[in-house]
């Protein structure tokens, strides 16, 4: 990963944190000043979907042409994506506590996000339960496709079909979901880009470590022979 991309990501995050706290936001009842949580809570979900999408991509590549490297990449992206998802749920719970009245409201999007997180947790349970490396890689790649296919309706479709407290859901589809005015877009989109880059950076470190671990294991095997 190029250094200038990392620096760009860091700058975007700094901008998002400064502007997110200082710029004007719509004055709305109930949410009041907590509307600023949009800049920090929502990028977690965008980041999660981006990382899971990358994981899906490498899983499909793996199934087309198996190699250990592709499996390592798919696993690393899913791992970071899960971390983003958990942060998304926790930040959402704090926000919900002060605007909806309780941390867990049984909101369709909240439940869907929780189920999607569990589906991806099962990915790691599956990986952990198989010793044979190739079998592990192949089965988890297939499961990863299922996991992504389950996540999309859980987070993006079902909440729109029913009533949801999340803005923009409940019979109101479209990308314009957060009742954002143009001022908020100026902060939210850079924040999302920044977190994409930071997420990608974290993944690249994990990939490096996993590769080196694999090389070390190979060296050990050679010694034994």
């Amino acid at each position, binding site marked *: 990963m190029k250094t200038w991309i990392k620096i760009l990501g860091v700058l975007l995050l700094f901008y998002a944190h400064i502007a997110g*706290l*200082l710029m004007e936001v719509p004055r709305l009842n109930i949410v009041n000043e907590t509307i600023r949580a949009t800049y920090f809570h929502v990028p977690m979900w965008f980041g999660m979907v981006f990382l899971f999408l990358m994981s899906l991509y490498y899983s499909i590549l793996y199934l087309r042409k198996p190699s250990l490297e592709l499996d390592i990449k798919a696993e690393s992206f899913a791992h970071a994506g899960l971390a983003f998802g958990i942060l998304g749920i926790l930040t959402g719970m704090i926000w919900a506590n002060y605007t909806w009245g309780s941390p867990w409201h049984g909101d369709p999007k909240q439940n869907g996000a929780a189920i999607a997180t569990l589906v991806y947790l099962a990915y790691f349970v599956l990986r952990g339960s198989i010793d044979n490396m190739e079998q592990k890689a192949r089965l988890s790649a297939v499961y990863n496709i299922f996991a992504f296919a389950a996540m999309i309706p859980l987070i993006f479709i079902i909440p729109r079909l029913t009533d949801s407290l999340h803005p923009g859901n409940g019979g109101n589809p479209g990308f314009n979901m957060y009742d954002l005015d143009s001022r908020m877009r100026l902060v939210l989109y850079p924040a999302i880009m920044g977190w994409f880059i930071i997420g990608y950076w974290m993944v690249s470190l994990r990939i490096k470590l996993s590769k080196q671990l694999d090389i070390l294991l190979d060296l050990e095997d050679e010694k034994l022979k």
Partner: protein
Amino acid sequence: MKNLNKALLSLLLTFLITFSSQGQDAEMADVMRSEGKIYVVVAIILLVLAGLILYLFLLDKKVTNLERMINEKRKTK
């Protein structure tokens, strides 16, 4: 014609005023902003963010070094 223009203009103004003043009465942390204390919060959050990012940078360096070392070791074998 002039009257029509005036009527349209006043209609437009009424719209503008109603939409721009929507939720103006909502309570926001205006005092905290006017006192400038918000900058304290911003400074603290930025420092934590900078610290974590620096940590990530150093970790990245360490991992890259490890990668280089292992590659060299593998070549010499």
